[in-house]
């Protein structure tokens, strides 16, 4: 037995993150730790890697009880970690990043040689002199993996490693992981993506609300049965109405370009697409490929010099601010829930006023009507099953899923003609995600035009009618979702539409 946890408990002021957790990882196995957001997976591995200390319980490493006081000590024992939100320093070089994350303190020149050695051995090409901010997300992950492998670890913890990768990158990662398993290393693989776990893992431990609720062999379980263990209740999978009436073009974007001097984000290059009333249009892509610029241009937070490039119901709006666009029937749900979608310290009622003051009757003769705001907030809470203390609760007190339901509800109740949503279910539990998907599809059936920008391909395939892919600020041609495969989208996410048309290219193969 390589690692054994027994009775691990960790409590925070607001919740018990881990409640007497027991499980073990054998040598040479890929062990999945499965659970919803907030189930306590991250806290658990932080304790294994020494970032946090358990309140109770013991960690047994290679048969000996150990106290892992800090990450340096974990690395010395042979435990490595690849982080979910990469623990990299953007303005520093690959070499410096690796040097910072390992225990040895040798000269950098030798380290550079070793980085190249290891990266070639495992097929993870890296240039030690490049700066992190110039790397793609997949390359950044490679830096983390190589850094981890340089320590020759016998246990590698991977926290949601595939959430930001293209499908092809995921396949490559799995080849590397299987190879590491063959070398006798153990991998603790944290995910909530059931297909991946079925494809990769030898055993799975399922966490729910901080407790271990089951143990299984993923190859023998169905994705559905594991999902049920993970969520604890039946999830209603939203049904897609394929026969909805599609209307006229509602949002038209034509040759929208934008360039910034910012080296950290992609520019936009002649983006063209349209969203019709009564359809959900999806834009897929790995984060940092221009989505943020596109969204801020569409919402009106950033004005475009090309007024004609963005049209809502035929009216050019590129030069109009967000307030005027809202009056034209646009509703917008940004990616970041706290700080962009809501003001964290303000009550839910106050937060309804923020996006609703111009389009509803919350303002009369220049005065805010707080009683109406409270009534509206209560209405949203009831209609969308938001679990909260009430309309006076602060936005930051809600869980991610509940806050997202509230924000989407707030925009939906305005019966918009056009809804733009970024990452509707990012970090949201499965139950809330299903509810949000259902709400979006109901809105579509009522004739609203909906644009969904998401990194989650499963989500886009489940709810969209047509989709396109953004890569390095360029948008691919749109295709009906049911004529599209994950592989095609993956190629486009990797930016392969320089040659002719990747959709067709793939079809010919």
């Amino acid at each position, binding site marked *: 037995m390589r690692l054994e946890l027994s009775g691990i408990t960790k409590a925070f002021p607001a919740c018990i993150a881990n409640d007497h957790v027991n499980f073990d990882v054998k040598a040479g196995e890929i062990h999945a730790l499965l659970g919803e957001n907030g189930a306590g997976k991250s806290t658990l591995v932080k304790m294994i890697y020494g970032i946090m200390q358990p309140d109770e319980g013991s960690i047994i490493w290679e048969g000996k009880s150990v106290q892992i006081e800090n*990450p340096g000590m974990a690395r010395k024992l042979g435990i490595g970690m690849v*982080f979910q*939100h990469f623990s990299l*320093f953007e303005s520093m070089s690959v070499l410096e990043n690796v040097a910072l994350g390992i225990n040895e303190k040798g000269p950098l020149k030798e380290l550079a040689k070793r980085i190249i050695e290891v990266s070639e051995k495992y097929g993870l090409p890296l240039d030690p002199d490049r700066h992190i901010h110039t790397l793609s997300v997949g390359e950044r992950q490679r830096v983390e993996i190589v850094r981890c492998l340089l320590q020759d670890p016998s246990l590698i913890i991977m926290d949601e490693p595939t959430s930001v990768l293209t499908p092809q990158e995921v396949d490559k990662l799995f080849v590397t992981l299987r190879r590491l398993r063959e070398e006798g290393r153990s991998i603790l693989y944290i995910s909530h993506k059931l297909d991946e776990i079925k494809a990769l893992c030898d055993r799975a431990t399922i966490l729910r609300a901080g407790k271990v609720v089951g143990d299984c062999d993923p190859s023998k379980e169905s994705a559905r049965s594991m999902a049920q263990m993970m969520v604890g209740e039946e999830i209603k999978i939203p049904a897609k109405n394929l026969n909805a009436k599609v209307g006229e073009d509602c949002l038209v974007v034509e040759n929208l370009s934008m360039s910034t001097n910012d080296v950290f984000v992609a520019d936009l290059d002649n983006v063209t697409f349209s969203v019709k009333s009564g359809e959900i249009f999806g834009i897929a892509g790995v984060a940092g490929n221009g989505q943020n610029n596109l969204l801020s241009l569409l919402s009106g937070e950033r004005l475009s010099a090309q007024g004609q490039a963005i049209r809502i119901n035929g009216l050019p709006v590129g030069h109009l601010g967000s307030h005027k666009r809202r009056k034209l029937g646009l509703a917008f749900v940004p990616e970041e829930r706290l700080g962009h979608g809501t003001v964290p310290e303000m009550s839910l009622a106050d937060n309804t006023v923020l996006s609703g003051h111009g389009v509803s009757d919350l303002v009369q003769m220049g005065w805010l009507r707080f009683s109406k705001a409270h009534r509206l907030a209560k209405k949203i809470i009831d209609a969308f099953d938001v679990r909260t203390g009430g309309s006076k609760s602060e936005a930051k007190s809600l869980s991610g899923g509940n806050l997202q339901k509230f924000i989407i509800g707030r925009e939906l109740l305005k019966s918009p003609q056009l809804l733009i949503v970024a990452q509707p279910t990012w970090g949201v539990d499965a139950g809330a995600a299903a509810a949000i998907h259902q709400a979006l599809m109901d809105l579509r059936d009522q004739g609203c035009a909906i644009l969904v920008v998401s990194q989650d391909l499963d989500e886009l395939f489940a709810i969209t009618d047509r989709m396109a892919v953004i890569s390095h600020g360029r948008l691919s041609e749109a295709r009906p979702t049911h004529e599209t495969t994950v592989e095609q989208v993956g190629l486009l996410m990797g930016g392969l539409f320089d040659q002719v048309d990747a959709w067709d290219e793939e079809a010919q193969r």
Partner: protein
Amino acid sequence: MIGFEVETLIAILLGVARGATPLVFAAIGELITEKSGVLNLGVEGMMLVGAVAGFIAVVATGSPTLGFFAAMLAGALLASLFAFLVLVLHTNQVASGLALTIFGVGVSAFFGLGYIGTPIKGPQAIHIPVLTDIPVIGPLLFGHDIMVYLAFVLVAATAWFLSKSRWGMILRAVGESHHAAHAIGYPVVMIRFFAILFGGAMCGLAGAYISLIYTPMWAENMTAGRGWIALALVVFATWKPGRALIGAYLFGGVTILQLNVQSLGVDVSAHLMNMLPYIATILVLVLISRDETKIRLNAPACLGKPFRADG
């Protein structure tokens, strides 16, 4: 006639070095603090406290060396108060820094009350036989006080520390992303604490330079805004020690120029000339801020953000 002009020129250039040196110390101290991700606006206050502490120590002991050490200690002491506030109690860095300056002004005035008008003999310019006596280059290269040379050494050492040493790399990492640094296992709070302490010590030194060498006396508020110029210099230098040195000499030059233009009887309002260094600061900041990329690549990304280990 010609001889007179050369002598004046040499005097002016020596003055430039004296004007620049306190700015170098204070700017380098703040640069290290900011590289760790902490914005300490208390530079002016720490300089004043250093100035008064150095002055009192010299009056008491007669030793300029002890004076400089006392100044560093006093600066570091005040900085440790700031460090406790922002690192342990998570107070707002901007507000705490401003409070530190106001506090420093008051505390230095209080302790300095009995020393106004007290004469002291500060350290003199060095004189190396033969070398210093070479005409023109001699005094310019070998005729400054020791602190002028130390400032150059400090800049070189800081540049080396930041770009080449392991601890310099760790310091930059902490300023770049404290969460990542914490996740890898570096003691973020401790590293920042020492960076703030170093910043305080250097500001103290800068203050003592003013009260012991620049104008060997004590007067309330005698740093006269140099702390703020040092702060601006760090941004001006885009967090690079070498550029901070150049900037300090530029500002030192403008300050001295202003004094000399007045003494030469040029008919410009003294108040207008007094504004010169500050107008130059503003102009340079405007120019620098136009290049967003440069700022983002060199500025510590976590500058001014509070860090909590459990977050």
